[in-house]
């Protein structure tokens, strides 16, 4: 399949919460298979933009969206788009680790069970899937004897990795991350970043972060947003070293924020 190498393309995307306009004419292309960082001060619409991509935003009611979001070349606001399929393609990791309060094993299979016919998974299949998912997030060694424990009783770092592992059986193409490391300590952050580095070829990552150093370390491209507008979108190195826009310069050189 010939793709244009962009996983996500938005065109003049505007979004309102009631009367408040949270996104103003955002047009952005996210490259495939890379890590894109979203930076900017609080309340500038980073998380809102992220949440648009799998339409979790709509749950809040009184949200109005205008413009287009194309994911893998398909506008996700078309009538015939199934939310189930969309959310299967676009996985999301949240700020606080939020494993479902069921066992580790069931956590990993939860997504798959939703998307496959009732009782169609055999025991051996599901065992394999769980092992694969946990291995790819480097948790298998730690958790192989604890598959039946409640996921909420794990360490935070393990929980966050589990949240990533939970997405993998669905074979998403895009993984959205909303400050995945803000609840973790330095070691946990490092572990999650390493994991992203390993997985980045296979999946497209989009990560919101408040941590400049982190954005610098892990992202290939960076987007700077300010008050709902997209100010600058460039390669990370270029954006940090010689930003084009004065507002970006102010922010990345820590003159404020």
């Amino acid at each position, binding site marked *: 399949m010939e793709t244009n190498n962009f996983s996500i393309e938005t065109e003049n995307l505007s979004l309102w919460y009631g009367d408040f306009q949270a996104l103003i004419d955002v047009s952005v292309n996210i490259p495939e298979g890379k890590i894109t960082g979203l930076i900017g001060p609080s309340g500038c619409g980073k998380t809102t933009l992220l949440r648009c991509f799998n339409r979790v935003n709509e749950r809040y009611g009184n949200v109005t969206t205008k413009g287009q979001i194309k994911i893998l070349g398909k506008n996700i606001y078309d009538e015939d788009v199934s*939310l189930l399929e969309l959310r299967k393609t676009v*996985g999301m990791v949240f700020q606080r680790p939020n494993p479902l309060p069921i066992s580790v094993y069931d956590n990993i299979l939860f997504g798959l069970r939703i998307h496959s016919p009732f009782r169609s998974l055999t025991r051996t299949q599901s065992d394999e899937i769980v092992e694969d998912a946990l291995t790819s997030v480097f948790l298998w060694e730690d958790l192989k004897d604890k598959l039946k424990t409640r996921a909420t009783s794990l360490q935070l770092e393990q929980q966050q990795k589990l949240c990533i592992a939970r997405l993998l059986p669905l074979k998403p193409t895009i993984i959205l991350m909303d400050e995945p490391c803000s609840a973790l300590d330095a070691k946990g952050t490092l572990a999650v970043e390493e994991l992203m580095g390993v997985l980045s070829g296979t999946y497209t990552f989009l990560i919101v972060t408040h941590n400049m150093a982190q954005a610098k370390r892990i992202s290939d491209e960076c987007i700077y947003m300010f008050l709902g507008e997209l100010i600058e979108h460039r390669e990370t190195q270029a954006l940090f070293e010689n930003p084009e826009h004065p507002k970006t310069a102010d922010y990345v050189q820590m003159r404020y924020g």
Partner: protein
Amino acid sequence: MNRSDPIYNTIALVILTIIFVLFWNFTTGTSDVEGRIASNEVVMDSLSIIYEHFYRMIPIFFTVVLFSLAITFFLEEWIPQQSWQYRIIERIIAILASIPSLVYGILGAYLLVIQSDRISYLTLIVTVVLLVVPVIIQSTQMAIQGVDIPVREAAYALGANRWRVIADHVLPNAFPVILGGIFIAISRVLAIAALIIVVYEWKITQLQSMISFGISKSVVILLSSALISSIFSSFLHKNSDYRTN
């Protein structure tokens, strides 16, 4: 949940209590209560009256509980929280729940029973609905709102639809608190039933018989129901999920 969980102990306790009460009723109760009420006959055993109608109340109670759970889930999961419909319904329920249960009891006893001179299913249903629905709705609302938003978001983001989220996550997590609310509603009904019997006897017989029969027994019922429900709630609280993290 495994078999040694306190919740199984409490369920066993409930079943034992019910069996005990029924057994007591078979041995000490008298039949044809309605006839005696209609003919204003003296010596009414409060306990026997309560448990005479306890049988009738069980199916009613089940239906009413299911009904109020359905209302609550509709309210919390379907209606947008900012809409005026939601606010009106919530306010009405809050008012209904804050009215002392004695008022409903007297309403049931005087308006419906004494006026029509017999205890009918309709009476029971109306009274139980008024007594139980607001309380259960309020406690269930608390329980549903207590389910972590991140948990819901996680499930939605994995592609689960609303039914799936409710059945797999909201209900199991909220269940202990919902159950607690149901027990509180049960104790509310039992307590007010005991009180009403006292008032009822007073109306029909003399104060004397009320003192000798009614008060002592209704106090026993009140205390025991309070005790049972507090035991339940302490067990359930220990068992609830919110304390992890």
